[in-house]
């Protein structure tokens, strides 16, 4: 498979703090990978760099052969990269259906129509019957699903999920993990997700990019990542914790 995303030597400094330091990796089309790291490792900053929300200081980010550095966030979305946010950010005062519709407005209207497209995505993430509910009144787990539906509405080729299972109960985590895997299987999308709940994470992804203090410390399959000395060190020295507080 060819690389859909190539990140080379990307660096971002906030004053004296180097949030992302000389990070390089590439994603193959159709793969499902994860960014792992303790709090403050630079995961979300990396996402913000990939999506243009903050500009990189150095390095290059090439998506499908096109340089992303200096491109406005809304244009990057139109090029095919969609993201969700760590904290759910539904459009307050708008229904679930309207929320998902907005997600697709930057794209040309699909043949089935915008409304039907949004309805289909709502069904896909398991929110059927809740179309007219005010988005901000939904349960947190449902808001997570809504986030994913809205990101999918932009018809992305690469989907970036920022801690999609953080703050959920164990039952919801299992459901949402299944959903993410299913979406990946059904659509063939390239998926990159951030998580620091190791256990679920390792079952979800085929490959892990591990960060610590802004640096890439390992890039390997999950089985080898859990045994990687630097990953173990990053996760408080001893054994890899199975469950970690979100």
């Amino acid at each position, binding site marked *: 498979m060819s690389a859909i995303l190539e990140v080379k030597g990307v660096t971002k400094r906030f004053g004296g703090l180097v949030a992302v330091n000389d990070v390089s990796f590439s994603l193959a089309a159709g793969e499902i990978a994860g960014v792992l790291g303790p709090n403050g490792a630079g995961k979300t900053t990396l996402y913000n760099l990939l*999506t243009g*929300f903050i500009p990189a200081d150095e390095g290059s980010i090439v998506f499908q052969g096109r340089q992303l550095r200096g491109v*406005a*966030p*809304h*244009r990057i*979305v*139109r090029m095919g990269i*969609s*993201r*969700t*946010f760590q*904290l*759910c*950010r*539904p*459009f*307050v*005062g*708008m*229904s679930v259906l*309207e*929320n998902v*519709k*907005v*997600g*697709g*407005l*930057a*794209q040309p209207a699909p043949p089935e129509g*915008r409304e039907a497209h949004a309805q289909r995505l709502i069904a896909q993430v398991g929110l059927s019957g809740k179309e*007219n509910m*005010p988005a*901000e*009144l939904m349960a*947190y787990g449902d*808001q997570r699903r809504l986030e994913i539906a*809205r*990101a999918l*509405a*932009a018809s992305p080729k690469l989907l970036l999920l920022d801690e999609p299972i953080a*703050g959920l109960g164990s039952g919801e985590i299992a459901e949402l993990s299944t959903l993410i895997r299913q979406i990946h299987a059904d659509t063939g999308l390239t998926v990159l997700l951030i998580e620091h709940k190791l256990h679920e994470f390792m079952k979800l992804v085929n490959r892990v990019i591990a960060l610590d203090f802004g640096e890439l410390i390992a890039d390997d399959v999950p089985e080898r990542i859990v045994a990687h000395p630097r990953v173990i060190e990053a996760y408080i020295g001893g054994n890899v914790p199975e469950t970690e507080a979100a």
Partner: protein
Amino acid sequence: MNRRALDTVAGAPGRMANPAPAPLAHARPAGLLGDKLDMAGAAVFVAIMVVLPLVLDNSYLLGVLSVALIYALWAVSWDFMSGLTGRENFGHALFIGAGGYTAGFMNTVWFIDGWWSIPAAMVVASVFAIVVGLPTLRLKGPYFALAMLSASVIMERLMLIFWEYTGGEEGINGVEPLFDSPLSFYYFALAVLLLVTVALVMLARSNWGLVLRAIRGDEATCQAAGLNVTWYKIASLLISGAIAGAGGAMYAHYQMQVSPQVFTVVLTITVITMVYVGGMGSVWGPIGGAILLVMMTELLRDFGEWRLMIYSLTLILILFFLPEGFIAPLWHRFKAWVGAKR
């Protein structure tokens, strides 16, 4: 836990100042029946407004109603941009004044026919919208509101400083009326208001309006949906400004003069109050707010010095008990009630 959601559920205090917004009054679950009721309500309103001056046959009240219609135009245009996006414009008077003085200069200095004032005023107000909006609407925070406020105050001062050209405090006098009969002007103003309102309500209910309401919800998420947020905001401000400018020109021709008062903060605040009373984000509600407030101002004239106090107290009570406004929210409750009875 999601603080945003909690805030909204709890009915966050301070929602008037902060764009962490309450659900908008015109979010419409009403469906077909609701649309029919809307049409019926609009038809009744138009019929009343058409017949009223004929029944009253009172030139003083006709004048009051005409002014109310122009205020309504300003309030509707304010609501289209600021009500929907939540980016409060504290200098709407900038557009009103720009339109008014454009009419004044064109008509009394260059002796151009009064009918050219309105399109010219729209162009001038649009230029102001771009000049102020372009640098400030891309920023988060209060910069846009403050820039609009400052721009209108600066223009007010400039009108006084360059008094040789602008007539200073007195303003420009001798602007020709657009119509010989005040009744004709009234119907003209009514027609303009209806046309503008229908157009803006349709726009607000289209995908465009959906984006504006989404911007009110969360700008970063809009960007994450691939929407050029700045462009939508500037285009909306341009539409809003152009309409307010047209209203400013109409006002100048109606009053047959234009003075620095059209640039004042007081005028902006009055317009915003009308929007709040009418129901923010409904686009049409502010018409009711404008008529109500203008009529109230006039009806209270007999109370002499008590007038301002009664006026303010009434407003405070309305906004205290109905923080989302008076006209549009009540209409929606009525529609829900009718829907429930069927």
